[in-house]
C-alpha cells in the first residue's frame, strides 16, 4: 500500500497517540493555560505551561481531544520542550512550522527529536492543522507569559 498511510501513521505517532506523554493539567497561579480549537473539526488542545522564572519551562502538560495526529503532536511537543529555555522552545515552534509546511530543518539537531515523524503529514493539507494545534497553543502560551513578566 503506497497511499501514504504508512508514512502518515508512523509507529512513533501511533505510540504517542496511544501513550501520550505529559498528559494532564497543572494547577497553580503562575500556570498559563491556552485552549486551541480546530474550528473545522472540533479538535481541542489545552496546554498548561509552568515557568517560575519566566525563562525555563519547568513543566508542561496538555489535555486534548482529537485525532492521532493532533494528540501525538501535543505529546511530542511537550516532550520536546519540557525543561528547555523559553527562547529555545520558541525556536523549536518555529522549526516545527517550517518543517510541517515543507521547509527544511537541521535533521541532526537533537533538540528536534521526533518532529521528523510528521513528515508524512505534509502531503495532507487538512491534517497540517491537526499537527499544528498544540504548537500554536504553546506559541500563544509563551507570548502571553512574556506579556505578564
Amino acid at each position, binding site marked *: 500500500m503506497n497511499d*501514504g498511510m504508512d508514512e502518515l*501513521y508512523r509507529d512513533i505517532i501511533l505510540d504517542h497517540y496511544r501513550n501520550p506523554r505529559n498528559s494532564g493539567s497543572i494547577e497553580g497561579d503562575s500556570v498559563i493555560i491556552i485552549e486551541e480549537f480546530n474550528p473545522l*473539526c472540533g479538535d481541542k488542545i489545552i496546554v498548561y505551561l509552568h515557568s517560575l522564572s519566566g525563562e525555563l519551562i519547568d513543566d508542561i502538560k496538555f489535555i486534548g*481531544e482529537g*485525532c492521532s495526529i493532533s494528540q501525538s503532536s501535543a505529546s511530542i511537543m511537550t516532550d520536546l520542550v519540557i525543561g528547555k529555555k523559553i527562547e529555545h522552545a520558541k525556536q523549536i515552534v518555529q522549526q516545527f512550522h517550517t518543517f510541517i509546511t515543507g521547509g527544511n530543518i537541521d535533521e541532526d539537531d537533537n533538540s528536534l527529536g521526533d518532529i521528523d515523524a510528521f513528515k508524512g503529514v505534509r502531503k*495532507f493539507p487538512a491534517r497540517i492543522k491537526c499537527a499544528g494545534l498544540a504548537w500554536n497553543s504553546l506559541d500563544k502560551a509563551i507570548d502571553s507569559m512574556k506579556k505578564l513578566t
Partner: protein
Amino acid sequence: MSLESKKLLDRTTQIRSDFPILDRKINGKRLAYLDNAASSQKPMQVISKINDLYSNYYANVHRGVHSLSMESTEAYESVREKVAKFINAGNINEIIFTKGTTDSINLFAQSWAKNNLKKGDRIVLSEIEHHANLVPWFMLRDEIGIELAFIPVLDDYTLDIEAAKKIINSNTRLVSISHISNSLGTIVPIKDIIDLAHHNNAIVLIDGAQSIPHQNMNVIDLDIDVLVFSAHKMLGPTGVGILWAKMDILKQCEPVIGGGDMISKVTFDGALWNDIPFRFEAGTPNIAGVIGFGEAIDYLNEINYIDLCNQSHVISEYTRNLLEEMEFVEILGPKDKLLRTSLFSFDIKNIHPHDVAQILDSEGVAVRAGHHCAQPTLNKFGFSSTVRASFYFYNNFEDANQLIESLQIVKKRFLQ
C-alpha cells in the same frame, strides 16, 4: 430483490453515467462518494448548462434591452418559476435567490425578525440544528434582546415533542427548525411543530437543506411559513440558495442589502424599494448559478428523483445494518428507521473520526469527519466529532460495500 427495485438499480447505473466525477479514481481506487450531505455532485446536464450560458447568451440581467441581456434575464427569471413549482409555492414572487441556506437564514433574521420582534419575544430552535440555524439567532439575540429556547433532543436522537408543547409558548413569534438533522439524520415531525407554532400564533421557518434534495416538499399542504435550502446539495451550482416565504411575511420584511436592482428610485437623500422579490436581491446576482440550478431542478424532475431517493434510502439502511453488526462501531441516530434519512453518523471506539476518514479516503471512500457544523448537538451526546456517511440517488451497493470493507482496513491499522 423485487423486479421494481431491480429496475431502479439499473436506472441508478444509467444515472451514474450522467455524473462525470463518479469515474474519478481516488488513490488508485474507485470513488465511493458518501459525502452528499455536505454537497452533491453535478450531472453533466448542469455543467453543460453553465457552459452553454457563458458560451452563447451570457450578459448581466434585468437592466438590458439587448438580446443577450434579454435571454439571460429570461433564463434567470424562469428559474423562479421552476423553484416555485418544485416546492408548490403559490406565487413566483415569493422566491428569493440567496447565496445558500446560511445566507437565507441570516437574511430572514435581519430582514423579518429584527424588524418585527422586540425584547422578550421568543424564538424557538432545537438542539439538533446546524450552526447556520443557531449563530444568526445568537447574533440577533445579542443585538435586540430576544430570547432563544431550544426543543431538547432525547437520548433516542428524536426531538422531545412533549417539551416542545411548553417551550413553544404565547411569547413565541418564530420557530426555526431543521426538517432533517445533518448530523444525526433525524427526521423532525415538522407538521406537529407547525401546528404547535400556529396554535401559538408563531410562524415557522423550515431549514430544508437536508430534506428537499430527497423528497417532495409542499409548502402549502404543510402550511410552512418560511423555507430555506441550498442548490449545491441538490445537483445545483455553488453560491445559490432559496429563501421562500409567504407573501404576507415578505411584506413585513425590510431589505437588508442595498444597491442596484433593489430600488425603484434613488436620490442623494434616500431610496424607495423595488417590488418583492427584487428588493431583497441587490447587485448582480449569481446568474450562472441560478440558471444552472434551474437545470438541476429540471433534471431532478425528469429522472423522477423521489423514487430514486427511496432506493438510495434502501442502500443507506443496508449499509447501516451492516455497520450495526460491527461491534467496534457505534451509530448515532434514531432506532426507528422511519424517523431517519439516508445518512448516519458513527463513531469507532478508540479511533478518531479524522483518522477513520483518512484511511477510508485511501480506499476511495469519501465520508465526512468532524462536528458537521452541529457542535452543540454532538457535544450533547458526548462526541466532539463523528464520521458521517450520506447517500444520494447515484450511490449504489458497490459504494456501500466499499465502505464496509474499508472499515475493516481501518480497524486493522488502528485496533490490531
